[in-house]
């Protein structure tokens, strides 16, 4: 009897469609968000995350419609991220049916926004998304810094310190993406995942780099992640979530089957 480790498929949404890019370029169309959400729900996904990858004003309206449509048919937790910058943005997404919101760039611009959001809506619905990139050379102690705006802007902020600060301000969960691994299918940055997960008291979702099912297992066992997020290995039918869970269970990981 124990808490299950979670598998969270991530749906990148642009103009109402699920897309998947490789290192933020080469966008491939993967389909209708409601259909995909229902399929993942049936396969046993523990939660779903939607990322508004363009985060323009027009797209935000579309995103709200997507969340509303999914929330009326799928009864597992839904997280929405991308372009969340104000209390009003959060309220809109929660009213549409989201259970949690992911805050990324806005936390860097104004860390106090995380505190304000957690006070207003509760820590349980505030996920701080951290995009980290290794900045140390091979013979140095590993060190990572955070990047914003989809990995385009460097901030010079240390990722571990930032993670602790976000938790202190009220983040209920961290979504940690390795910018070095995202889209490469070479596995999570396990050192990064473990360093962050061991440094904070809240759950950490590992993201960026999943290319095979063993990567999910390594993220939990070696990276100490509480949940693992992946997109492309599920979107294009290479693996189902049920297969992933079966393999996790075989290796002694507690999962919801």
């Amino acid at each position, binding site marked *: *009897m*124990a*808490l*299950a*480790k*979670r598998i969270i498929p991530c749906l990148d949404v642009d103009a109402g469609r699920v897309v998947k890019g490789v290192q933020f370029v080469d966008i491939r169309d993967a389909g209708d968000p409601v259909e995909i959400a229902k399929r993942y*729900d049936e396969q046993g996904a*523990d939660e779903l995350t939607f990322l508004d990858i363009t985060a323009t004003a027009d797209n935000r309206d579309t995103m709200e419609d997507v969340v509303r449509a999914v*929330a*009326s*048919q799928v*009864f*597992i*937790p839904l997280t929405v991220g991308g372009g969340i910058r104000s209390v009003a943005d959060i309220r809109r997404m*929660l*009213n*549409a*049916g*989201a*259970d949690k919101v992911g805050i990324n760039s806005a936390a860097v611009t104004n860390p106090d926004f995380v505190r304000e959001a957690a006070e207003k*809506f*509760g*820590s*349980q*619905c505030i996920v701080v998304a951290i995009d980290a990139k290794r900045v140390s050379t091979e013979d140095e102690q590993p060190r990572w810094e955070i990047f914003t705006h989809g990995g385009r802007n460097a901030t010079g902020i240390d990722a571990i310190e930032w993670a602790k600060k976000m938790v202190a301000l009220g983040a*209920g*969960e961290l979504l940690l993406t390795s910018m070095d691994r995202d889209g490469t299918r070479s596995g999570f940055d396990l050192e990064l995942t473990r360093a962050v997960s061991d440094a904070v*008291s*809240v*759950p*950490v979702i590992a993201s960026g780099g999943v290319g095979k099912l063993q990567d999910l297992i390594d993220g939990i066992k070696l990276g100490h992640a*509480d*949940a693992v997020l992946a997109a492309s290995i599920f979107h294009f039918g290479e693996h189902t979530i049920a297969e992933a869970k079966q393999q996790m269970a075989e290796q002694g990981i507690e999962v*919801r089957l």
Partner: protein
Amino acid sequence: MHRVAVIDYGMGNLRSVSKALEAVTDNQSQILVTADAEKIRSADHIIFPGVGAIRDCMTELKRLGLDRVIGDVVKHKPFLGICLGMQSLLTRSQENGGSAGLDIIDGEVVYFDSAIQQHLKVPHMGWNEVEQRYPHPLWRNIPQNSRFYFVHSFYVKPGNDDSIAGHSHYPLPFAAALAKENVFAVQFHPEKSQHAGLQLLKNFINWDGQS
């Protein structure tokens, strides 16, 4: 028409709860998300949800006069508390440096110190198994040890263990569900717990309040 009132006191997103209710009632029931005392008093089934911190919750309940309304309807109508709605039913909470609850079920709400000591993450977030301690109409057609979705940092410790209808472990056993006469309360979120959660909501809607 059969009516279900979902008590709306501004704590969290109640759309998930009403959507899940619509799904299990096939539009045969009227679902009212409301803070209106009369609508709550005249409903057939009452759901008391909520997320967030207990002090804000109690402040809002009192400001809206809902503490008295809940105190009345909880005496005889089928009543379901969810998450913070469950915690508010107890006598007191450790949260926010100590806060009084509605004192409908004797006991207190305490922090997950035991989990922290074992280096587990808090909030307790995700899918955990619930062990049903005895048969109850709300457990009908839900397999023993089904997983439900939890997200909370505090848990309830009732004064009388007999009121515990279901246990979970994190790492020690804690009360995941309470039952007392026409009141049922759950720490997890049935509206986010897929099949098992929807079944529990369906069972509640069909419950006459007798155990």
